[in-house]
């Protein structure tokens, strides 16, 4: 028993001494990552709560500001994010199989799709900048009845999509780290925990957008 444990530790330098085996270590990492994601659920949940209250409080202003959300661009960005989640699971799968080339390829694809999403988001923000739809001293709104209410709703739009975009930027940084680590042969089919954990994070950010898209872009139109 002692002998087999010693060989196990010697054969896998990634196993920390306080874990019995790699399976237990992996299980702990997954649980820890999910605890972090639960705090993220609560964080975004607060903003979804504020959104729910103000949408009900100012239904007319909400219908008015909804006209400035471009459904086509929102739908394209949703598809881009779903594609990036797909390439991410394929990256994790490649890591499980120990395929280094495929792993790097899928990670790069995920990173590119993430950057495409942020680029499209930039054009949307730029459009709102041009239209003076950024809440603050230079805010302008065509319908003067909704001047104050529209500012609150645009603020919520920027807070929610902005926090989501910051998570995407962090995710892009994490993906870059993974690509460098993969290129340096840090992962094997025996140890690829960071790929799996950052995969969980990336999918979570995708899920946030899955809820933001219908709430911000779709439901206001038919009101």
């Amino acid at each position, binding site marked *: 028993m002692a002998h087999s444990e010693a060989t196990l530790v010697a054969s896998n330098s990634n196993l920390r001494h306080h874990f019995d085996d*790699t*399976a237990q270590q*992996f*299980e702990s990492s*997954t*649980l820890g990552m*999910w*605890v972090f*994601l*639960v705090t993220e*659920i*609560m964080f975004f*949940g*607060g903003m*979804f*709560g504020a959104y*729910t*209250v103000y949408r*009900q*409080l100012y*239904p007319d202003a909400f219908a008015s500001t909804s006209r400035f959300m471009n*459904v086509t661009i929102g*739908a394209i960005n*949703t*598809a881009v994010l*779903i*594609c990036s*989640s*797909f390439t*991410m*699971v*394929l990256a994790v*799968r490649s890591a*499980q*199989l120990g395929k280094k080339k495929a792993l790097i390829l899928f990670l790069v694809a995920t990173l590119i799709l993430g950057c495409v999403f942020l680029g499209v988001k930039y054009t949307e923000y730029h459009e709102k900048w041009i239209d003076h739809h950024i809440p603050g001293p230079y805010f302008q709104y065509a319908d003067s009845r909704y001047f104050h209410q529209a500012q609150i709703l645009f603020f919520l739009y920027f807070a929610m999509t902005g926090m989501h975009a910051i998570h995407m930027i962090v995710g892009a940084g994490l993906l870059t780290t993974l690509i460098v680590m993969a290129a340096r042969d840090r992962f094997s*089919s*025996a*140890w690829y925990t960071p790929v799996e954990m950052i*995969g*969980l994070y990336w*999918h*979570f950010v*995708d*899920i946030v957008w*899955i*809820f933001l*898209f*219908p*709430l911000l872009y*779709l*439901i206001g*139109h*038919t009101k």
Partner: protein
Amino acid sequence: MNHHVVSTRLYTAVFIALLALTVTTVAVSKVELGELNLVVAMTIAVVKAMLVVMFFMDVRRASSLTKLFVIAGLFWMAIMLVFLVSDYVSRGWLPGPRWF
């Protein structure tokens, strides 16, 4: 790690389902359904999120402890949203649903 590797076919099927649901939710949003628009859009969003959580994040094969943490997180968010809205509605600060 002796993880069972999932086939590419299953991932592709989930991916296509997610894209199909995105097209569906956009198409339904063009139809005037009144209050049902919100219900349909949110139902589709929940189904999409479930697909991502179960298959891409692999919660269906995760340990019971991890599943418990995921469910607890969602339950606590439900407490936050339900109590927040019920507080506003019961004070008459928000228009409640018609049956209220």
